């Protein structure tokens, strides 16, 4: 009698365990699996999708959002948010461009300056914007949403003031190289994206600073008691986000050949979307930069695929919206199960 009960029970148990295992893998690698599946479908549907040219194209188109999203990952890991990155893209872009233009009307006196100097200044502008947001958040305890909303407006205003509302055209070929150049056939934006990803991955996974970011986001009180300077960490993540926004802004200007004052509008939303799709929790302390990159690629591939299939861009926005919410619903389902 007992044996009769246990045999099916064991079988049911084994099946349960197998199902749980599958579900666990599904959730852990869900986004990656989704990316691979979408790529497979697109490869079947459209012969051009898997061409080297198209793949490099997708990567190049993803690079700017990817770099912004990596910066955003640092911020969101500490329970923050950076709404200002789109405006910082424009400000850093136009300031750097004004140093690297051959147009006499838009040029800073004595220009054009060497590309490296322009890039250094552009990065500094991004870092300065991030530092201001960071100080307001960390030192004055203003909610990140509000502090960076302020920066979103202020940086856009500064962009318009700086360039008098006009674009800065005719950038030097040296400066344009970071947007249009190629190394061994790989576009520079893709190389920069890869470098930023590897460095960010290393920082978050292998350095003390990375440990501090996860601790300060997971539980700021416990981190503080453990001797971690939580305020400094909070400040630093906005500086990182600002610097990467500056880099992205210069890449954008370099690619198009001129810096536009309305560049980067709403870029913060795609960056946040990539982070969220990549599984980083808005509650802080949980997430990986690898997930963010996959999230950014997913958005890029979907946009590209819909382009190839000739789907109207309005539909693309709807699909992206569904994608974001579906990714978070999956994540919530996992948390409930735990």
């Amino acid at each position, binding site marked *: 009698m007992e044996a009769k009960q246990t045999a099916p029970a064991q079988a049911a148990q084994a099946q349960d365990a197998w199902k749980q295992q599958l579900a666990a893998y599904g959730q852990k690698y869900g986004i990656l699996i989704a990316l691979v599946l979408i790529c497979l479908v697109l490869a079947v549907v459209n012969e051009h999708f898997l061409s080297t040219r198209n793949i490099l194209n997708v990567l190049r188109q993803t690079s700017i959002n990817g770099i912004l999203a990596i910066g955003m990952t640092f911020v969101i890991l500490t329970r923050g948010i950076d709404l200002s990155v789109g405006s910082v893209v424009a400000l850093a872009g136009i300031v750097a461009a004004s140093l690297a233009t051959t147009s006499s009307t838009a040029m800073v006196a004595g220009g054009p300056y060497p590309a490296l100097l322009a890039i250094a200044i552009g990065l500094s502008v991004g870092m300065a914007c991030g530092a201001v947001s960071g100080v307001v958040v960390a030192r004055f305890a203003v909610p990140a949403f509000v502090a960076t909303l302020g920066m979103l407006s202020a940086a856009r205003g500064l962009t318009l003031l700086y360039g008098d509302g006009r674009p800065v055209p005719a950038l030097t070929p040296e400066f344009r190289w970071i947007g249009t150049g190629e190394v061994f056939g790989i576009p520079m934006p893709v190389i920069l994206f890869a470098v930023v990803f590897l460095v960010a991955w290393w920082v978050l996974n292998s350095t*003390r600073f990375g*440990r501090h970011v996860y601790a300060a986001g997971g*539980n700021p009180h*416990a981190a503080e008691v453990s*001797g971690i300077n939580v305020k400094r960490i909070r400040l630093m993540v906005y500086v990182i986000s600002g610097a990467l926004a500056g880099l992205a802004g210069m890449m954008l200007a370099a690619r198009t050949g001129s810096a536009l004052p309305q560049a980067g509008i709403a870029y913060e939303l795609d960056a946040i979307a990539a982070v969220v799709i990549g599984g980083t929790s808005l509650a*802080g*302390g949980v997430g990986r930069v690898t997930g963010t990159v996959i999230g950014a690629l997913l958005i890029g591939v979907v946009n590209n695929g819909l382009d190839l299939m000739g789907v109207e861009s309005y539909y693309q926005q709807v699909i992206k919206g569904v994608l974001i919410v579906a990714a978070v619903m999956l994540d919530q389902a996992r948390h409930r199960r735990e």
Partner: protein
Amino acid sequence: MPPPLLEVKEVTKSFGGVTALSDGRFKLERGTVHALCGGNGAGKSTFLSIVMGIQPRDSGSILRDGAEVTFRTPGQALAAGISIIEQELSPVPAMTVAENIYLGREPLAVFGRVDFRTMNANAQALLDELHFGIDARTVMMDLSVAELQLVEIAKALSYDAEIIIMDEPTSALGEAEADQLFAAIATLKAQGKGIVYVSHRLSEIFEIADSYTVFRDGAYVGSGAISDVTREALIQMIVGRPLTEEFVKENVPGTDQALSVRGLNSLNHVKDVSFDVHRGEILAVFGLMGSGRSEIFERLFGLVEDMGGEIALDGKPIRVSSPAQAIDHGLAFVTEDRKGSGLVLSASVRANICMAQLAELGFGPVMSPQREGKAARDMIDKFRIKTATDLLDVAGLSGGNQQKVVLGKWFLTEPKVLLLDEPTRGVDVGAKREIYRVMSDFAAAGGAVVMVSSETDEVLGMADRAIVMRDGTISGELSRAELSADRLVHLAA
């Protein structure tokens, strides 16, 4: 004889093949307080969630007033007169007491408008009947934790509950506040209600309970009248093996000064506090909530602004303006609120253990996973932390094991002085003893321990000396020979 209010027979429950409850039995009589005892993982939570209809049972039966019942939702259990007061209360803080009591079933006037007059009057009548001394129009966030619990009790009674389950109700209360709760329990008992009382604090159980039931490893172990059982026998049933002593105390206080504090003031309610701790000594700090007992630690650890006072370690004056400095000087601080400020629950056991010592576990700014892993495993072995690997999330561990992770984090820093704030709160009897062992060994090896505790038993069992706090200042000091529960409570109140 009438049938019992609630009788549970041989209830079982398993999750995905793992048995959480193999034999849940319980019998609650009218007008009694029945203690449900058991260590972490004994199956109490599963048992309660089945009784409350949160989870279905696999087999067994539940009888309410002798009639077989099955609850599929907490609402059905509530309708049958069974109510639970959770360990972590969840009031709506910006609403009044009356609004919280009648949440979701507000009395309505014309046009669906809430009839506040009736609601307030009903709530006030309920509170007065119980002698709670709470105004129904007070906003919840202005109440103390003890008062919040009293409101929960009133809410339960507003549903005509006959059975009230209280899960660790005193875990966030001081002694005086607990007395207020016990008075309320006595009132309920006199009204013929049945109370299921879950607590790790044995002295409370002996103070207020009439009967007990013990669970261990998911099964019923025994039950009976409290008057027929000794404390030792109850502990033995809970842990399943004889415990020679509840407390472990083998340290001998030395004469070398470890930590010396003179005229300490802080923004957070510490006024002119001076004391010394010697190497090898365990000093207890006793006091009610808000007496400044925990605030001393916050000041010593650099978490609040320095408002004057001198701190010396091993005879040398030190300055502490941040936790990092405190750690460098050799202080370690096990906070009262394990989940709030002790652990990063979203992180692994390893990350938590290494958190206060990261600078020593790498090369410059680069971490060494090998060193981190070894440090974590050393502490897991030292404190016998029950976890499959050091990479598991700390959230999945039991309360006792989580507390040991916190201890591991601080022992990794090789501290000279341990500041322990309620070190055994929410920890089962077995793990408690292990924590006492750790304290004793640390002091015996020449360390100094300062322990804040609101449990008089713990102070009597572990302390070499005690200082008592009241209104931010020291109201008295007792040597081990002078220590008694009466004196402690007298000095604190």
